[in-house]
């Protein structure tokens, strides 16, 4: 092999440049330490015993056999939880270890620490639990009125959005019912971490997560320890996509470490990972769309049921997104939307990339195609005629004050050239290496879809991020608690420092709870929130520098780019030079504009900013066998400003691939609440053979007011309308309704 005698250096790279990830070198050499790679002298291995039943009462737990196994150091149950045996992201409603009732198959019942992982697994097997088994509640519609399976009731949230004249009727009316299956984040690095006890009784938790401070608070409550006694440090994260926003093994690890006085490491295997984190909410959606004969939307009626599974997690916020954006990226004067987020004995559901918008986007985009067909209009023209624009009011009564280049997104995509006709190579046809499909069986289809995503936390949440900029005689360090999950925030930190201070070499201090919260790495929010905080911390250093220079020299400089310039132009000095020999340490908290909760009619300025995207999918379908090959997905996206072109492309390609997965491959299959495919043989992620060429038709750069550098978050939009675009393309090829995703071969072949 060829060896390049060169290592990765940090390039000259302010905002807008394809800067290289600072962790790239470690990652290509296998040196980057993920949470599963932690190791400590004398460490023990943790293991979780989970309920095989979806609904049951625990009658007894006998740990004596497990404890007697050589090498076992601890076997703990609900009785051993030191503090409150309850946790949860939005509301605490989930036991750390089940103490009476089991509400989903996979609920943790007991935990073990042993000197070898196989010993720990055998010990978990040796715990004898006696259950009284009940029939599980697994139907989300029935759950609304069924007997409560949790003291807090089955309806986690019921939301009404009433906007304009809800009685008006359009000239053309189309109706449809849609269903979305349960998707998994399926990050490559399963849940893992290590807890290390300190002699002073405190605990250090090193873990892959999305939100260090939320973890810290929930762990401290469960351990009955003051917050400062629980230190949470980010360990290398192997992908997240929402699935690490909730606490998983965190408290368990700390309990075992505190109990044994030894470091304890835990890694979920893939099977357990499916049980150990929340999933995308399955949805049942009904729509009735009204339009005028001229092709303008008159009213949208919708009912949305999200299956939250056994515990609340973020169901309330996911439901709000699903309902608020149930009309898609369109202007509708009148709307009546009702949503329920319900509790069932299915596995808990919560955050996944796209967060509620994914589910209703699938339905609303199908409705838009139906309406266009009914009106004999081109689907893109119809969308253009109804596209939201800046200054429009969405159905929650909120006026869009930022940018909303929906028309630009749609038009640039529609103008993008189509791909070549179907290939002559059998491997490039539906069925791939299975050699199922001859050229005569291939039908091509093209589908369009567009989407809206709210950026950052909504409904009055006090959303902030803290950043610290330390300058010490030419050495600069940035500290935040922002979690890097692969999205490239660490690259952005370098770019921001270079943009403002002109300094090339930056140390990023470990993300931990010794600084204030950065909030979660979710909701497409970290470039804006923690990026904004880093920007302001750097600016605070400049302000202090200017103040010092003013005191020393009597000149009040202002910063232009990375240079300090006297107002009259008589003097200038690069920031880097001016910082020589000086020390600063500035900590800044960044907040976005406040929002308010939705009122009883679902009205209010609940959201901060909106990002738009559109996708065009081209598919080849073998109708007779129901096999699909996605040939190409093209996209245009409203990004405000491109901060790093290559990272933006990576986010877009990765997000679209997850959307493709939901369209035709990915679903957690449940029978009576039990997962049938908790492994990568049967939970089918797209391989490189399933993933098409992804064309970026345009990235629309209209700077967003109030956004740091004018940039909108880009992580979520790619995943939202890619799914309905693929389905629309399959509908185009087959003429079938296809109202449920993922589409299985039999839905086409036997449809």
């Amino acid at each position, binding site marked *: 092999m060829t060896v390049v005698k060169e290592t990765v250096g940090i390039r000259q790279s302010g905002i807008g440049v394809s800067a290289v990830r600072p962790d790239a070198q470690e990652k*290509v050499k296998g040196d980057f330490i993920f949470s599963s790679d932690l190791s400590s002298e004398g460490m023990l291995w943790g293991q979780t015993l989970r309920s095989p039943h979806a609904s049951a009462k625990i009658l007894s737990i006998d740990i004596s056999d497990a404890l007697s196994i050589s090498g076992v150091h601890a076997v703990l149950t609900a009785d051993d939880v030191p503090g409150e045996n309850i946790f949860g992201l939005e509301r605490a409603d989930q036991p750390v270890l089940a103490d009476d009732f089991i509400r989903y198959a996979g609920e943790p019942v007991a935990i073990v620490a042993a000197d070898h992982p196989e010993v720990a697994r055998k010990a978990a097997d040796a715990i004898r639990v006696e259950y009284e088994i009940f029939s599980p509640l697994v139907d989300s519609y029935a759950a609304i009125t069924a007997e409560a399976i949790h003291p807090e009731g089955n309806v986690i949230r019921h939301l009404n959005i009433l906007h304009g004249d809800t009685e008006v009727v359009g000239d053309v009316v189309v109706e449809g019912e849609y269903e979305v299956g349960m998707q998994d984040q399926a*990050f490559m690095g399963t849940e893992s971490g290590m807890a290390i006890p300190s002699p002073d009784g405190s605990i250090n938790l090193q873990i892959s997560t999305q939100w260090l401070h939320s973890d810290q608070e929930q762990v401290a409550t469960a351990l009955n320890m003051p917050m400062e006694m629980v230190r949470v440090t980010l360990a290398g994260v192997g992908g997240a996509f929402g699935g690490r926003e909730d606490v998983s093994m965190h408290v368990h690890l700390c309990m075992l470490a505190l109990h044994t006085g030894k470091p304890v490491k835990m890694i979920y295997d893939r099977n357990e990972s499916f049980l150990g984190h929340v999933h995308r909410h399955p949805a049942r959606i009904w729509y009735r769309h009204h339009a005028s004969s001229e092709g303008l939307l008159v009213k949208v009626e919708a009912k949305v049921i999200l299956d939250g599974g056994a515990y609340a997690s973020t169901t309330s916020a996911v439901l709000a997104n699903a309902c608020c954006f149930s009309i898609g990226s369109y202007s509708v004067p009148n709307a009546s939307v009702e949503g329920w987020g319900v509790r069932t004995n299915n596995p808990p559901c919560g955050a996944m990339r796209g967060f509620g918008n994914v589910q209703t986007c699938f339905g609303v985009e199908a409705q838009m195609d139906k309406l266009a067909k009914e009106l004999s209009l081109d689907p893109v023209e119809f969308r253009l005629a109804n596209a939201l624009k800046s200054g429009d009011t969405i159905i929650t009564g909120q006026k869009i004050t930022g940018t909303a280049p929906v028309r630009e997104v749609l038009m640039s995509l529609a103008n993008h050239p189509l791909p070549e006709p179907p290939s002559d190579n059998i491997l490039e046809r539906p069925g791939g290496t299975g050699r199922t499909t001859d050229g005569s069986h291939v039908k091509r289809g093209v589908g369009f879809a567009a989407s809206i995503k709210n950026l950052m936390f909504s409904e009055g949440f006090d959303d902030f991020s803290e950043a610290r900029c330390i300058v010490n005689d030419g050495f600069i360090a940035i500290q935040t608690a922002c979690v890097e999950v692969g999205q490239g925030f660490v690259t952005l930190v370098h770019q921001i420092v270079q943009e403002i201070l002109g300094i090339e070499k930056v140390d990023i201090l470990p993300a931990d709870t010794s600084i204030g919260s950065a909030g979660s790495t979710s909701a497409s929010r970290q470039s804006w929130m923690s990026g904004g905080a880093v920007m302001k911390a750097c600016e605070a250093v400049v302000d202090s520098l200017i103040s010092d220079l003013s005191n020393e020299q009597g000149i009040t400089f202002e910063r232009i780019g990375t240079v300090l310039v006297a107002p009259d132009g008589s003097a200038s000095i690069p920031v880097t030079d001016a910082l020589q020999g000086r020390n600063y340490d500035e900590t800044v908290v960044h907040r976005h504009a406040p929002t308010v909760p939705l009122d009883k009619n679902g009205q209010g300025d609940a959201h901060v900013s909106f990002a738009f995207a559109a996708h065009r999918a081209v598919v080849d379908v073998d109708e007779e066998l129901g096999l699909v090959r996605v040939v190409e997905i093209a996209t245009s996206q409203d990004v405000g400003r491109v901060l790093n072109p290559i990272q933006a492309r990576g986010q877009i390609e990765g997000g679209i691939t997850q959307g493709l997965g939901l369209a035709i491959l990915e679903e957690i299959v449940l029978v009576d609440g039990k997962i049938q495919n908790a492994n990568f043989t049967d939970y089918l992620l797209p391989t490189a053979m399933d993933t098409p060429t992804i064309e970026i038709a345009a990235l629309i750069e209209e700077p967003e007011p109030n956004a740091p550098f004018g940039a909108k978050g880009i992580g979520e939009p790619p995943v939202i309308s890619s799914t309905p675009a693929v389905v629309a393309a399959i509908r185009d090829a087959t003429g079938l309704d296809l109202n449920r995703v993922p589409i299985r071969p039999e839905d086409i072949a036997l449809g």
Partner: protein
Amino acid sequence: MDKDKRSTGYSLSVNDTSHEISKSWLGESLLYVLREKLGLYGSKNACEQGECGSCSVLMDGVLVCSCLVLAANATGRDIKTIESISDDDSLTDVQKAFVDAGAIQCGFCTPGLLITIHDFLETNPEPNVLEIREAISGNLCRCTGYGRIVEAVQIVSKQKSVGQGGSDDSS
């Protein structure tokens, strides 16, 4: 062969170094031993059923999933892991292309992909896109959608084809 390996350990040759592995649970996979007994954490565990390729290593020059190799049965075989493919201060052409092409996000699948691609380019130095995609179809990546990874392979392939014209190749 030894008539009986009861109650004894075994040796493993990993990255040209011989290691004595103490007896333990027989079911230990090569992946587990590499990571937890030899501290070679570069090979990743993401599925333990040969579906994701994150644990890919070369065994006697053959690309395999180390999670599907019984560790005890790797004795007497030459194991090469991600840790061996470049020196401390250098990157291979493929590693460099991964960095430049933006083929890395979370990086969990990266070591397995690099082993796979190095192996693939040895036998097929100038592949087309379909060949690249089939060659990496056993390596799941959840972050990138594979686009930048395919791009990285193409970068290396182009360099190799130019390199045949006589440019310096220090392999």
